[in-house]
């Protein structure tokens, strides 16, 4: 035997017959994955570009029938909603009907199906009944209706909160049975009232402390956030304070996002532009005691620092060997602290039995905040069973 290692590897590999690849199947898989990613990226095409509905529509709790007019936005001063004195956003999640909001717990009337966070508490839906609630962990009140939260696969993208601030935005509908949106409802959880209605329908892309970014198109031909270039994405920024809407160019959108700290950025030489991650697009894999970006693209903060995360000693990702568990961003607690959910992957079905990890970006340390148990949980950007 006189071959070099290179020769042997080549001969070994070439001795294996390469299978034929079904391109149509790959195209179908890619399409399915892109659709799922769009939903998870809060870009689900749940709305129809609709006519402007003049006046205000309102919210009421209870039945899933038509919705009564709501009070018009008012300049009322902020109420005294409890906020973490450190300024950090409370971590929110639910197990069954029990909601956890920071150190507080609150019992909902039914099992929680959807939950998301603002600086003031949790927005949630119980039992997919189309009713949106807000709780600060001590009391709860109905804030609106959003029929799309009832659809398990379209849960995300229909109700959007900012990674910081108090705004919640959802599609404005006249009936839970008729899912055509006339615009967006903008609710402020610190004031506990609807503060604006945006007279344009489409998809909400991103929300921050006082602005709503949206695309009025339901046509999926030109998505803003995806692994593709979109020349004319029809982007708009709505200023909640002034009520003004501004059309944005793609570069302006990119520049705006770059000013936000609670966001990851993925970019790779050879790819066009950057990919700002609004939560779930950044998947992590466990490699020993480290968490690494699951895609072959470096992940950084918006300030350009490489994301390096270390797992707690002895921690292992949930799920059986080879099940392909998922670890993704759930929520940001402050500019340096992010909550990740980890579960067994679940394939195309909702996954179970995960942990909630809290990771500090400056030193990369992660700890288990909520340990996995037989009881499944619902967290921001993680569906219920």
């Amino acid at each position, binding site marked *: 035997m006189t071959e070099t290692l290179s020769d042997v590897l080549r001969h070994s590999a070439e001795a294996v017959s390469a299978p034929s690849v079904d391109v149509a199947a*790959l195209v179908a898989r890619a399409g399915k994955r892109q659709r799922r990613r769009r939903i998870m990226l809060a870009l689900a095409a749940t709305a129809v570009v609709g006519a402007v509905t003049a006046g205000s529509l309102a919210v009421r709790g209870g039945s899933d029938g038509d919705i009564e007019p709501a009070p018009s936005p008012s300049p009322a001063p902020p109420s005294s909603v409890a906020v973490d004195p450190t300024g950090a956003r409370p971590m929110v999640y639910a197990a069954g009907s029990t909601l956890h909001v920071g150190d507080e717990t609150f019992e909902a009337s039914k099992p929680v199906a959807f939950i998301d966070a603002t600086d003031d508490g949790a927005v949630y839906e119980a039992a997919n009944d189309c009713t949106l609630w807000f709780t600060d962990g001590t009391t709860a009140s109905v804030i609106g209706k959003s029929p799309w939260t009832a659809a398990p696969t379209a849960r995300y993208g229909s109700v959007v909160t900012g990674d910081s601030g108090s705004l919640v935005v959802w599609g404005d509908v006249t009936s839970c049975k008729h899912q055509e949106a006339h615009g967006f409802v903008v609710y402020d959880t610190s004031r506990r009232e609807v503060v604006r209605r945006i007279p344009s329908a489409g998809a909400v892309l991103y929300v921050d402390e006082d602005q709503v970014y949206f695309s009025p198109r339901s046509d999926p031909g030109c998505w803003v956030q995806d*692994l593709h270039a979109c020349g004319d994405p029809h982007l708009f920024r709505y200023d909640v304070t002034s009520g003004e809407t501004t059309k944005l160019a793609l570069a302006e959108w990119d520049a705006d996002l770059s000013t936000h700290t609670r966001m990851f950025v993925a970019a790779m030489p050879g790819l066009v532009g950057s990919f700002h991650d609004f939560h779930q697009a950044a998947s992590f894999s466990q490699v020993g005691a480290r968490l690494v970006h699951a895609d072959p693209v470096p992940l950084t903060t918006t300030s350009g620092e490489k994301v390096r995360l270390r797992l707690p000693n002895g921690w292992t990702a949930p799920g059986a*060997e080879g099940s392909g568990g998922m670890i993704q961003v759930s929520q940001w607690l402050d500019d340096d602290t992010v909550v990740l959910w980890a579960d067994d992957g679940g394939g195309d079905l909702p996954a179970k039995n995960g942990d909630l990890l809290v990771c500090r970006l400056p030193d990369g340390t992660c700890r288990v905040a909520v340990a996995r148990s037989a009881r499944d949980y619902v967290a921001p950007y993680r569906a219920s069973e």
Partner: protein
Amino acid sequence: MRRASDVPAFSEFVEARSPSLFRTAYLMVGDHQLAQDLLQEALVKTLIAWPRLRDHANVEPYTRRIIVTTSISWRRRRSFHERPSSTLPEPSGPDPAEATVTHDAVVVALLTVPPRQRAAIVLRYYQDLTEAQTAEVMGCSVGAVKSQVSAGLKRLRGSLRQDFDETVTGERETTS
């Protein structure tokens, strides 16, 4: 969203390059079925990224990179995890089948090498990438590539001592 023209171009790429990419995947995981899964996963990710790949000359390196990183993240899959070196084929004699047995032994022995070291060896010795190119694919420094290759070869040599000492790993270890 992909453009309609992307699919024919992607199809062309798959037809031309999938055999080579499959072989890389095979060396990374050592299992025919798993290599198929790995290739398909890499191609799906490539197709999703296709419209953003500015220069299509980057497509194959991109796909290869996905194969490497994905195979590392799949490391805990039972089918290629911790293959026992005791199952190495018996040493071959002057039999015509010697080459095949030898090649099989190398693949099996390769699976005893930790994934990142294995990736470094496959990229350096099968793909003939330079250390710098290997570092780029693996997302690490050139120094890390050197240490991964060195550690991997040491382990590989240990597994193959009886059959391949001096003949397989000896020649190129010091070249770069």
